[in-house]
C-alpha cells in the first residue's frame, strides 16, 4: 500500500543528491528502501505459508508468481530500474523473456521422449 502511494510522487524526492552528481544518479529515499524490505519479508512469509497448504498444481504457479513479484520489486527499487534508462529494463526483460521461451519450448516435447528415459531392469543394477 505504501508503495502505491510513493509511486504517485515524482522521482526525485526530498533528499535528492547534489548538483555535481553524475547523470542519471538518484538516491533512493530511506522510506522506500525500508518499505521494499518489509514487503519482501512479508512475501517470503506468504510463500512459506502457501507452500504448507496443498493446492495441487496451483502451488508451483503461486510460488512462481510471488517470486516474480519479489524479483520485480528488487529490480525496480533496489536496482533503481524505476528511475533508470528504460533501455536497461528492456535488457533484463529480454533476458527473462528468452529464458521463458527456452524453458517453454523445451517443455513442449518432453512427453515424446519420456518413455525412452525409463530405465531397463539391467540399467538399475550396478555391475
Amino acid at each position, binding site marked *: 500500500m505504501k508503495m502505491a502511494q510513493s509511486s504517485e510522487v515524482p522521482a526525485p524526492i526530498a533528499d535528492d543528491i547534489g548538483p555535481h552528481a553524475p547523470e542519471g544518479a538518484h538516491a533512493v529515499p530511506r522510506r522506500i528502501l525500508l518499505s*521494499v524490505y518489509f514487503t519482501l519479508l512479508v512475501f517470503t512469509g506468504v510463500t512459506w505459508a502457501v507452500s504448507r497448504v496443498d493446492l495441487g498444481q496451483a502451488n508451483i504457479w503461486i510460488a512462481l508468481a510471488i517470486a516474480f513479484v519479489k524479483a520485480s520489486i528488487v529490480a525496480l527499487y533496489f536496482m533503481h530500474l524505476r528511475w533508470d534508462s528504460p533501455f536497461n529494463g528492456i535488457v533484463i526483460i529480454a533476458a527473462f523473456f528468452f529464458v521463458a521461451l527456452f524453458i517453454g519450448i523445451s517443455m513442449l516435447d518432453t512427453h515424446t521422449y519420456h518413455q525412452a528415459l525409463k530405465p531397463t531392469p539391467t540399467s538399475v543394477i550396478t555391475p
Partner: protein
Amino acid sequence: MTSAKLGMWVFLGTEILMFGGLFCAYSINRHMHPQVFAFAAESYLNVFWGTLNTLILISSSLTMAWGVRAAQLNQRKLLIVCLILTLMGAAGFMVIKTIEYSAKWDEHVWVGKWNAYNGLYKGSEPATPGPMPSPVVAVTPTSSAPTPTDANAGLDVSMIKPRYNGPGGLANQTIQQPQESRESLRDPQVIAERYRDLSASEQWHVNAFFSCYFLMTGLHGLHVLIGMGVITWLLIRAIKGEFSAEYFTPVDLVGLYWHLVDIIWIFLYPLLYLIH
C-alpha cells in the same frame, strides 16, 4: 556512468541466461518426476535453513542498496557500515550453506558417485538405512539407525504413508499434530519407506533432484563468494575514501550484481525447498 551501467545490465542478462539453462533442466526433470522431487526435497532439504538464508540475503540486499544511497550522499562512514553488514550477510549465507552441504555429505546424498541414490555410488556404506538403488545393500532399517526423536516418540513411523499414495491427510491422521509431519519426513525410516513406495523408474531418477539442487545452489553459492570478493574490494576503496557523490559507479554496479544474486535465490528458495 550510463554506459557502464548498461554494460552491467547486459552482463546480468547473460547471467540470467546462464542460470536459465539450469532452471530448464530443473523444469523438465520435475515435470517428468514430480513425486521424485517431492520425495527428495521433503526428505533431505531443511526448510528452516532455506528460509533463514532467504531472509539473510534479502537483508543484505537492503544494506547494499542503502550503501549505494550512502555513497551517493557522501556518507562515507555509513557506506563502510553498510558494506560490512552486506559482507556479514554474505558470510552468514555461506556458513548456512556449508552446514547444509555437510549434512548432505553425512547423509550420503552428495553429487555423482557420492550420492547413494546414484547407481554408480562409490562412497562408504551409509550408516543410516538410507536406501540405495544397488541391490547389494538392503533397504531395511538396521540397528544402527538413529532412534526417532522425542517429537516422534511412541509413534509408529512405519504407519506413515506418503501423502500422494492415499487420500489427503492419511499421514496426518496417524500423527496427532500435523505441524510436525514435515519434520518426521526426514526420519531415515520414513525415507526408506517412501523410497520403497516409488516405482522403479522413479527410484532411478532420485539422484536427478540432487544434481539439480547442487548445480543450482552451487553456481549461486559461487556467485555469493565472488560477491564477497568484490564487496571486500569496495570496502577497501571506501575506507580509502575513493567514493563520493561525484564518483560511486563501482558501488552502484556491485550493488546491481548483488541484487541479481538475491533475485536468483528468490526463485531457488520456493523451487527447491518448498516442494511437496
